[in-house]
């Protein structure tokens, strides 16, 4: 393999003048597509954050017009929470973590010039963009946006007379389905690229962990989303063609959707978790100057998690009217999944042992992921145990739990990744001081908000309730709700620091060298930012990605592409 290094690598990409359209809009370059995914995802993230602001304000000050929105009606409230969830998972976590970092990193880390199917890659982004546009349109159609929760349980989602959003629910479903298809196409591309296009000399165990994680996530997505696509087609037909797949009055079964949804929905958590775990692995090894503890164990654990994640879905349905005996099985499988995840956390903590740790901004983000995700992980045990789930199901305890997982995954994972790879993406360094202000301004409010919500959840407060002051027993938590809202507004405010830092550094930041962090993986051997085709001569890999602090070497890192 190693003797087939193509010496003509750049020859396939003749330089020619390209128009604005073909450079930025219809580009097939994986880096440009990654940027498209990222900026679309971030734009959707702003919408999702705005929605969170509006409904948190409504909860803290019910009946008061929200500045920047107006009076929130119950229908709007439902649409806001529904689309906040949908957007944050399908239009932020997926495109940013999986598609943006996947597209950017896979060819660069594998030492190839592009994805194997650049045009399919572009098509997948375009489908994704289309799905985002359809979703945004769905907020403005008569009747308003869909308000049946991101889980879209029928019959509420299936019948217009129940949801009162005839067009909104259909458009929502169409948007989600398109998004799935976009990520199926993208995932096939990722997996094929990693299987077939690694740099000469790069063996299975030389692949950087983040690439492995993205591949496993793509396969996991592919294997789990199929039934839900079938389910979505059935739901679309129920909505518009008068079928009765989910209508109990005419021989259907509403629980069927729940099974199809959560058969996908639970693995989906790992689909977004794995890329972030990978990003964190890259960052902590670089800034601790340490080899990743037990690379193969991590890999097998991830495979194990992926397989196990298919067996736990019904823990979302303990009280949904399934056979009570099934709860025992799913309690066991759910608690079993705590073992691989605990193992991963142990590995990450163990990696810090014996390191030489520098607390740069990316490292702070990566470490805060571990610290907060631990809380998210352990609180899941309460919900996986059927006995306590009877009480905790659909309370704010659940909400706080999964925000303690999804926030580290999506938001912290993104910030860790972007602060780490920013020099490679844009050729300039981010401002460290602003980065740290933004870090503390995000991480402190986040913890205050959701620790508060754990408490109100234990107090019996349920999710998706428009106005808690209408419930005499819940009205007494109003101060805590105001507290959470105030800190949310503060946290959103601190994002301005990031946006300023991002765009200012992009234009005027300090120029970055090719390898500012002294990292090993192949992308740091390319120019910053990498040109079309990435390298003038495609690299060869000689060793694994985590050879830091190798004894006997003068430097404490040993890039994969350096012979010897």
């Amino acid at each position, binding site marked *: 393999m190693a003797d087939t290094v193509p010496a003509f690598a750049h020859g396939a990409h003749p330089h020619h003048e390209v128009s604005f359209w073909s450079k930025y809009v219809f580009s097939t370059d994986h880096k440009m597509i990654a940027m498209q995914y990222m900026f679309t995802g971030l734009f959707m993230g702003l919408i999702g954050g705005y929605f969170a602001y509006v409904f948190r304000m409504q909860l803290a000050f019910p009946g008061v017009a929200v500045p920047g929105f107006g009076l929130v009606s119950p229908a709007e409230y439902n649409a806001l929470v529904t689309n906040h969830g949908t957007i944050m998972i399908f239009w932020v976590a997926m495109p940013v973590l999986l598609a943006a970092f996947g597209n950017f990193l896979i060819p660069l880390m*594998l030492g190839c010039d592009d994805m194997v*199917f650049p045009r399919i890659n572009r098509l997948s982004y375009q489908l994704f963009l289309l799905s985002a546009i359809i979703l945004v349109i769905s907020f403005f159609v008569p009747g308003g946006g869909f308000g049946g929760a991101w889980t879209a349980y029928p019959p509420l989602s299936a019948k217009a007379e129940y949801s009162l959003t005839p067009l909104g629910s259909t458009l929502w479903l169409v948007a989600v389905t398109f998004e799935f298809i976009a990520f199926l196409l993208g995932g096939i591309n990722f997996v094929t690229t990693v299987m*077939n296009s690694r740099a000469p000399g790069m063996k299975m165990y030389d692949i950087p962990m983040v690439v492995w994680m993205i591949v496993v996530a793509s396969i996991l997505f592919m294997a789990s989303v*199929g039934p839900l696509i*079938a389910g979505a087609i059935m739901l679309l037909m129920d909505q518009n063609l008068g079928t*009765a797949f989910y209508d109990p009055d*005419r021989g259907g079964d509403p629980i069927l959707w729940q099974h*199809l949804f959560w058969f996908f929905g639970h693995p989906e958590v790992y689909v977004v978790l794995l890329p972030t775990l990978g990003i964190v692995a890259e960052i902590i090894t670089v800034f601790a100057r340490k080899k990743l503890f037990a690379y193969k164990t991590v890999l097998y654990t991830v495979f194990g998690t992926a397989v196990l994640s298919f067996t736990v879905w019904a823990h979302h349905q303990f009280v949904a009217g399934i056979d009570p005996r099934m709860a025992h099985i799913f309690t066991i499988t759910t608690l079993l999944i705590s073992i691989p995840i605990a193992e991963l956390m142990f590995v990450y903590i163990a990696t810090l042992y014996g390191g030489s740790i520098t607390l740069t901004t990316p490292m702070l983000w990566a470490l805060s992921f571990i610290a907060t995700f631990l809380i998210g992980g352990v609180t899941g045990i309460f919900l996986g145990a059927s006995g306590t789930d009877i009480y905790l199901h659909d309370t704010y305890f659940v909400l706080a739990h999964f925000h303690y997982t999804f926030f580290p995954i999506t938001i912290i994972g993104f910030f860790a990744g972007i602060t780490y790879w920013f020099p490679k993406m844009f050729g300039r360094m981010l401002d460290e001081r602003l980065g740290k202000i933004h870090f503390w301004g995000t991480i402190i409010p986040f913890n205050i908000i959701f620790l508060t919500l754990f408490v109100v959840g234990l107090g019996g407060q349920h999710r998706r309730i428009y106005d808690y002051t209408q419930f005499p027993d819940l009205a007494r938590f109003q101060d805590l709700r105001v507290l959470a809202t105030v800190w949310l507004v503060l946290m959103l405010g601190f994002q301005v620091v990031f946006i300023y830092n991002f765009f200012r550094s992009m234009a005027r930041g300090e120029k970055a060298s090719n390898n500012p962090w002294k990292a090993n993986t192949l992308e740091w051997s390319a120019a910053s930012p990498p040109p079309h085709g990435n390298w003038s001569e495609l690299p060869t890999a000689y060793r694994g990605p985590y050879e830091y602090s190798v004894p006997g070497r003068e430097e404490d890192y040993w890039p994969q592409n350096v012979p010897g």
Partner: protein
Amino acid sequence: MAFARPISTTRSTAGMPTGRLAVWWVIASEVVIFGGLLASYIMHRLAHDAWTAQAAHTNMWIGAFNTLVLLTSSLSAVLAHKAAEEGDGARAAKLLCATIGGGLLFLCVKAFEWTIEITAGFTLQSSTFWSFYYTASGLHAAHIIAGVIILAFVASTARKNLELHRVELIGLYWHFVDVIWIFLFPLLYIAK
């Protein structure tokens, strides 16, 4: 803008051409879509004995004929692949046209069959069995239509002796669509 195929497409670390590898992944992702639909159908079917009586109204002989048509068309796809391997693009194109013919015949028979059923009063809304019947066979028919379009495209390039590896790829897809029908036929027509 002229499209230059990247070097990464030409690599094959896994020991399989990139195109074939990707088609296998496409098939894998399609398998779970149909798998979800059929699993839902089977679960319902087991829970509703009454469906047996409704399934009795499907025409097994039409279904059997369509099975035969599809299997035959798959055979010509195999022969087309063989011709493409030998570098005979013109012959491969002809054989692919035979496959297209099979696909179109299948669709015509399907249209005829649905017409009979709808005029007999069995529509999409009649019952959940018929909803499943039309959804499953409709989704399958959509795959046949897509397959026929791609087959036509591949045949037109193969005739010029270009991109002959695609003959194998579309063949793989066609066999997959065929296999799906092998599952649908007993589930919807024979089990009564």
